[in-house]
C-alpha cells in the first residue's frame, strides 16, 4: 500500500499539479513538498506528492551499479 509512483509535473495550479504518471494524467496535491516546478519528477502516493525525485542521485546510483558490474559507460551519456 506504500506504493509510490514516479510521475512528471506538467502543470501547477495553486497547491494542485497535473502529473503525468506513466502516461495517465492525475491531479496530485503538493502540500507535502516544497519548490516543485513543471518538469520535475515526483513520487506520487495516495493523491499527494511525497518527494521530488533527485535526478543527480538517480544517475549516481545507476553509475554505481555499472561500476560494480564492471561496465565503464557513463550513465549520464545515455540520456
Amino acid at each position, binding site marked *: 500500500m*506504500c506504493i509510490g509512483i514516479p510521475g512528471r509535473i506538467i502543470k501547477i495550479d495553486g497547491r494542485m499539479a497535473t502529473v503525468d504518471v506513466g502516461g495517465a494524467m492525475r491531479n496530485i496535491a503538493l502540500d507535502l513538498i516544497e519548490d516543485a516546478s513543471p518538469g520535475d519528477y515526483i513520487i506520487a502516493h*495516495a493523491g499527494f506528492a511525497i518527494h521530488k525525485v533527485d535526478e543527480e542521485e538517480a544517475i549516481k546510483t545507476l553509475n554505481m551499479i555499472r561500476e560494480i558490474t564492471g561496465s565503464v559507460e557513463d550513465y549520464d551519456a545515455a540520456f
Partner: protein
Amino acid sequence: MKHVDEYRDSALARVLVDGIRQVADRPFKFMEVCGSHTVAIFKSGIRDLLPRNISLISGPGCPVCVTSVEDIDKAAAIAGMDGVVLATFGDMVRVPGSRVSLQKAKADGADVRVVYSPFDALKLAQSDPSRKVVFLAAGFETTSPAVAATLGRAIEAGVKNFLLLSVHKTIPGAMRALLDTPELGLDGFICPGHVSTIIGTAPYRFIADEYRRAAVVSGFEPLDILQSTLMLIEQIREGRPSVEIQYRRAVSEEGNPVARGVLGRYFEASDANWRGIGVIPGSGLKLKTEYAAYDAERVLDIKIGESRETRGCICGMVLKGIKNPPECRLFGKACTPETPVGACMVSFEGSCAAYYKYGAR
C-alpha cells in the same frame, strides 16, 4: 530518464547476482519489511536468482494486513450508523472482522465507499453536508502525512462533517519488536523505501547501534533490491552495521521534514494493536485532543462486541517472519485471495497473497 525501466536491466541484474554469489560465504537472512518489496521480489523472480544461502523473508509491512480485527469491527459499526458514509482505501473493505468485512457490511446496506486518496473522501463530505463522512485512515508513515494534509484542508475550508478513524501505524517500533523475537535470527533489514522518504534514516539507527544488525533503505526495482542485498552482506562481512540508503533518488538522510511537520500538527504517537502481533507501544498515531471534533472515536458512539481473531489463521507468525504462508493449514484451501480468511491474504501486498499468486513455496 523515467526512473523505472533503467532499474530493470536483466544483464546488469545477472552481474549483481554474481557479485552477491561471490561474497555470500555463509547463510544470510534478511527481512524485507515492506509489502511492496515482497511483491517486487516475487514478480522479478529475485528469490530464485539468489544463491540458496540467502533468504529473504517477508515482514509486517502491509498496512492492510496489520489492521486489527477490533479496528475493522469499529469501522463496520460506524458504516452501519444512520447518516454516515464510511470511506477507505480499496483493500481495506475485504479485511475480515470478527463478524463481517466492510464489503459484507456494504452488501447488507451500509454506505461504504472506496477511494483512491483521502482527498476523495473530503470531496464526498463537501458534496453532501447532511451526512458525516468517516475516513478509515490506514497506512504507515508514507500515507499518514497525506491524511494529515487532507484534514488540514478540511479545517481550512470549514468542513464539519469529515471525520477520521485513525488506525495509522509507524514502522520502526515494529522492527524493534521483530529484533526482540529471538527465533527470527535476522542479519538485517531491507528498509521500506517510501516510509523512509518521509522519516529519513535516524529512526532506524537503533538497528545498527543497539542490535548490531545491517539496514539498507531500498528502492523497488530489481536492480535496487539486488544492490541493497549486496550492501547488506558487505556491512556484515566488514563488521560495520549501519543504516545506508540505496534508494537515494527518493530518500535522503533527513527524510521529508515538510511532511513530518504537517503530520505532527494533527497527530501524536499512541499505542497500536497490530493484527496477529499485539500491542506495540508508541507505534500508532491518534489525532491530538485539539482536533477531537474530527476524531470518529471521540465524536461517534461506537459500540462493538468482543472481537475475536480468525481461527486457524497464523498471520501473526507470517507477519513476524517466523512461518511461511504455505505452512498454514488454510493456505490455498479455505483461504485464497477470492475468499481470504486472514488479512495477509487480502491485499496483493500481503505475504500470503504474494505467495499464492506467484506459486512460491
